[in-house]
Each structure stands twice: as structure tokens, then as C-alpha cells.
């Protein structure tokens, strides 16, 4: 008699996991990823693994300056991830964080350059306003078409990134300083017009503080407000949302206005707060990395603090390895990629479990 071959294993969805279980799995994944990275590094540099791990830690905690850069980078990455999160919760794949932040950055820089003779009391509010509006506009365009005509938002927001990049490249030439360089140097280096004030004697402190407030705000917004609830209903099931009378189009556009606005704010913090200049790589791929931060943090702003810190920490560590062992700086990207693959893969073991298929005979007993 022909017998169907049964697979040895089958996959079962897990129910709700206690938080320590899922974070345990992730910790194991990160540990494996680190071991894997260390092996790769050993193959390339023939250094011992302890030295390699020491270098990773040194990259973030080696000096006060390195530590502050770690916090600043974490804050900026987290800021864009926070911006993307409401959109993701709504199942709107906004991968245009890069472009939205650039739009904000461009608006801030425009204020700083065009209003260079005004007082900061006027310039800074203008920067805040225009950069938030620019980011919101950049986010709302794809949202409008998604809401009205169902245009694919992933591809639309992706393309908007490059429109923004070229727009910034255009203005970099228009506002070039000095002439012929094709780049905007530091804006208003003497008068410091449009430079956000330093607090606590540190140029990164203001950014970190603003992002910290934003994190709590976003947590409350998503968890305890009516709008946050509407977002999650639309994300879970658009049909249910329509049925219970949520105007889905309105929610989509409103959420993307918020998403874009926060990205614009990130652009403001980058230009006005720390870099005081503008170029097309000022956002530095954070718009893309933020997608991973938000997803790995399960769209929960509090967990995202952890994931953004982790990614920046590992990225800086990988960069430190590259410089210390005389490798090309792109080595950091390889290690970041490897670590991400492990974390992405580990989600499977959190959501599913693999069971051995019991043979039919046994079940009869």
C-alpha cells in the first residue's frame, strides 16, 4: 500500500510568550551573531577573540567622546525609528524615512542660510516649523495616493528618498560655500545663527533629551490615545476598521503626517543640533536602519530604545574593529549585516516552535 511520507517535523505557532522567553531567544541570537562575527574577524585579522570583543566595547565606551557619540547616534536612529513606528503599526511600509528626514534637514538649512542676518529668536522657530512641515509633506504625498488610489507605498516612499537626495544635491551646489566646492561648509560658523542651543555644556545633550521625551510621548500616543488605537485597528484589519466606522483614509494620511513630521524633526536635530551643515548623506542610511530598529523592537517605543542602542553599539564596535585592525571601514557593514541576519532569523523561534511529528502508530495507542 502506498503510504504518504510524513515530514519529520512540523511547525506550530506559539501562543503568547512571556517576555523573558522572547528576549532570551534574542539574546542567544545576538550571542551567536557575535561569535560568528568574531570568527569572521579572526579569519580576516588572525587576532584572538577576546581582543576582538574588547575592541567592540572600546568602540562605544573607550572614551567620553565615543560614549557621547554612541548616545547621539542612538538618539538619532531612535528618533527616525519612532517616526516610522506608527506607520508600520498601521501596516504602511514607510521606508522613506531617509527622504523625510532629508526634507526636514533641507528646510532647516534653508532657514539658516536665507535668514542668516536675523536673530535666533526668529530663525529657530522658523526652522522647527519648516522642517516639520517639510518632513510631513514628504510623508503625506505617498500616504495621500495610498489612501485614495491604493498606490504601493513601499515603492513610492523608496523613490521619494532619491528625489529628496537629488534635491539636497541640487541645493548643495546652489548654496555651495566656498564657491566651486560643490558642498555647503559649516553654516554660519561665526554668528551661529540657527545653531540649536547647547545645554548641559554638551552639543549632543539637547538632541538626546528631545528624543527621550519623544520616546515617552510616542509610547503614550500609541498605547493610550484614541488615535493610537485607531492605528492598530487599521493595521490589524482594514475591513474591521471600516466596519466600526474608522475613516481609514483619514487615519492613513494623519499617521503619515505624524511620521513624516517626526522624521523632519530628526533632520532639524541633525542640521541645527549637531552637524550645522547639509549634504545628501547627512541622514547616513538611518532611514533604512530605523526600519529594522522598529521591527526588531516589535513597534514598541520602549523596546526600540534597546534595539537602536544595540544596533548602534554593534555598528560602532564593528567600525572600531575596522580601524584598529587596519581594515576597510566597510567591514563594519558586513558585521552589522551578519548580526541582523541572526536577529531576523531568531524571530522565527519566538513565533513558532518546531515539533517532531508523532508517527501515526504511536497516536493510536
Amino acid at each position, binding site marked *: 500500500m502506498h503510504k504518504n511520507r510524513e515530514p519529520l517535523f512540523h511547525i506550530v505557532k506559539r501562543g503568547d510568550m512571556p517576555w523573558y522567553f522572547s528576549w532570551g531567544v534574542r539574546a542567544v541570537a545576538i550571542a551567536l551573531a557575535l561569535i560568528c562575527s568574531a570568527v569572521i574577524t579572526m579569519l580576516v585579522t588572525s587576532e584572538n577573540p577576546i581582543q576582538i570583543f574588547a575592541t567592540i566595547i572600546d568602540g562605544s565606551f573607550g572614551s567620553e567622546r565615543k560614549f557621547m557619540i554612541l548616545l547621539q547616534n542612538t538618539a538619532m536612529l531612535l528618533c527616525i525609528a519612532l517616526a516610522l513606528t506608527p506607520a508600520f503599526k498601521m501596516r504602511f511600509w514607510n521606508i522613506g524615512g531617509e527622504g523625510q528626514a532629508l526634507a526636514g534637514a533641507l528646510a532647516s538649512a534653508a532657514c539658516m542660510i536665507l535668514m542668516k542676518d536675523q536673530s535666533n529668536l526668529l530663525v529657530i522657530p522658523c526652522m522647527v516649523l519648516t522642517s516639520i512641515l517639510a518632513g510631513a509633506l514628504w510623508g503625506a504625498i505617498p500616504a495621500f495616493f495610498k489612501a485614495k488610489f491604493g498606490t504601493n507605498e513601499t515603492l513610492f516612499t523608496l523613490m521619494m528618498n532619491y528625489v529628496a537626495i537629488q534635491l539636497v544635491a541640487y541645493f548643495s551646489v546652489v548654496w555651495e560655500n566656498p564657491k566651486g566646492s560643490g558642498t555647503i561648509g559649516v553654516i554660519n560658523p561665526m554668528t551661529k545663527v540657527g545653531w540649536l542651543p547647547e545645554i548641559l555644556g554638551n552639543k549632543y545633550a539637547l538632541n538626546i533629551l528631545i528624543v527621550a521625551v519623544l520616546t515617552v510621548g510616542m509610547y503614550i500616543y500609541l498605547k493610550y490615545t484614541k488615535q493610537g488605537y485607531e492605528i492598530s485597528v487599521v493595521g490589524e484589519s482594514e475591513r474591521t476598521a471600516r466596519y466600526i466606522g474608522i475613516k481609514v483614509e483619514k487615519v492613513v494620511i494623519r499617521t503619515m503626517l505624524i511620521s513624516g513630521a517626526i522624521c523632519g524633526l530628526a533632520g532639524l536635530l541633525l542640521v541645527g543640533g549637531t552637524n550645522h551643515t547639509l549634504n545628501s548623506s547627512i541622514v547616513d542610511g538611518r532611514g533604512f536602519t530605523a526600519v529594522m530598529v522598529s*521591527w526588531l523592537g516589535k513597534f514598541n517605543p520602549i523596546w526600540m530604545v534597546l534595539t537602536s542602542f544595540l544596533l548602534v553599539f554593534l555598528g560602532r564596535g564593528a567600525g572600531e574593529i575596522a580601524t584598529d585592525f587596519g581594515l576597510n571601514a566597510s567591514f563594519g557593514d558586513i558585521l552589522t549585516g551578519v548580526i541582523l541576519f541572526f536577529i531576523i532569523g531568531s524571530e522565527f523561534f519566538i513565533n513558532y516552535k518546531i515539533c517532531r511529528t508523532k508517527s501515526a502508530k504511536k497516536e493510536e495507542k
Partner: protein
Amino acid sequence: MLSTVLSFLPRAIAQGIPLLYGATGEIVTQKSGNMNLGIPGVMYVGGICGVIGAFLYEGTLSSPAAINPFLAVLIPTLFCLVGSLLMGLLFCFLTVTLRANQNVTGLAMTTFGIGFGNFFGGSLVKLTGADMPFLALTATSNCFKKTLPFATKLGVVGELLLNYSFLVYLAVAVALIAAFIIKRTRTGLHLRAVGENPATADSAGINVNRYKYLATCIGCMIAGLGGLYYVMDYAGGIWANDAFGDRGWLAIALVIFTVWRPDVGVLASFLFGGLYILHMYIPSGMNLAVKELYKMLPYVVTIVVLIISSLRNQRDKQPPQSLGLPYFREDR
């Protein structure tokens, strides 16, 4: 005027070929419902693996004159295909077998792939301890660039149509074959079914995971050839970090622009190639800034196509319905 056209068209086509490879690969992938945003990374990996293959082969030669043109083409091509295949397998393993989010996996693959390309490209010379100042594989590149010997003698037609290397014709052939398979064969029908509605396909007895794996891996291998073409032919065998630029994303734009049809992609890629280099032909005088705006054109055009195709809502011009969505049989 004619000479401008004669110099513009071949360059537009040369620019378009990497995009065509990338777009054909991505269309095949997307038809299975997998949105592989790792294509830019895959194209970098394809390029650098070809470089590694060529580098190893040239290292075994006593002099550049002793090069065997057949091996010089075969070895890098094989390396390129294997490298891109591995990237495809990685993507499938994570998204199909481990059911991870496709966007996140794709973006991670792009980070990894670009890092991989730049790392090995930048330090290949250093790692192997050779005494060349930069990585120039001119001998291999010359084999890749071989054109028909009589092409230039055939006047305008010969120069415009016949004077290209084999990878250019291969790109066109692959695109046309892909279009034929997707549209006219049973395999293609199954593939489209998987991309449109995997649950229905599954109940019709189609092995969804096998189609997703095969389509994504083949798609990655095709896209990887785009990287190989760029390094070996377009760039003359010289690897420079980040030189490939954002062509990978442009290839994804091309997928939308062609409304998921590889045969349309042939001409569309030349158009995109033309838009990509248009800024060099614009007599903008002193105004360099405007050139940056011209570089925006391919993306703006893509957005317009995306909007128009969703406005007209024709069923044959839509993305595969379950594009980007994972499929778990148990979740039906």
C-alpha cells in the same frame, strides 16, 4: 547632431544594461510574491564575486598575454552566479523558511551586500599582498568586452546594434526569455499564481515554497550579472568602492516603470540609462546645480508611472497581489 545621438545611444544602453539585469531579476522574484529589497546588495555581491574570480584567475597566469579568453570569462561569471545565488538562498531561507519580514530582510541584505562588495573590493589587494596599487583587471575586462570584429565596418547600424559585448545581448535575451516564460508557459502561470494568491496556488497543488525559492534564487543570479557587467565591461575591470552607486534602487524603480514586464524592460532600461546620463548632455553652461535635478528624473518618472498605474487600476498593470506578504499555510 547625428554624432551626438551616436555617442549618446550606446552610452545610454551601456548604462541601461545593469538596470536591465537587476530589473529582470527583481521581476522574476516579485512575480513569486517576494519583494527582495536586497537587490542592490546582491548586485554588489555579484560584481565583487566576479572581481574575486577574475583576480584569482589572473593570479595564476605567468603574463597577461597568456590569458585564455574562454576561462577568463567563465570563471568570473561562475563566481558571480554562485555569489548571487548564495544571497538569494539567504533571503529565501530567512523569509520563506523562517518567515521573516521581507522588507527588513531585504534592507539588511543591502547593507551586508554593499559592505561585502566594498570591503573585499577595497582590501583584496591588501589581503593577498599583491604589489598593484589598485584593482584593475584589464586583461579579463578585455575578454569581456570582445565585440564582433566586423561591427564597426557596417556603418551606423553596425555601431548602434552590433557593437556590444556578449553580456549586453545576454541581458536582452534573458529579459525576453523571462517575459516569455512568465507570460506563455505553465511554469510562468504557476509562478504568477503563487505571487497573486499563494493560498489558491497551494490548493491547486503548486508547491509555493519551491516556486518562491527558485524564482528568488534565479532572480538574484540574474541581478548579480548586472553587477558583473558593470565592473567587467562598463568600468573596464576597475573596481572602485561605491562606484556602482544607487543603480540597484534604480533597477527596482524600473520594475515598477515596466509594470512587471521584462520585455518592456529592454527598451525602458535604455530609457532609464539615457535619463541617468542625460545630465552630461544638457548644455547647462555654468549651472552645475541643474544637473543634479536631471538625475532626479528616473525617480520622478517612476513615481508618475506608479501613480498612473494605480489610478487606471487596470488589472494587468498592478503589482502581484500578495507582493511582500509572507505565506504560511497554517494562517489561511
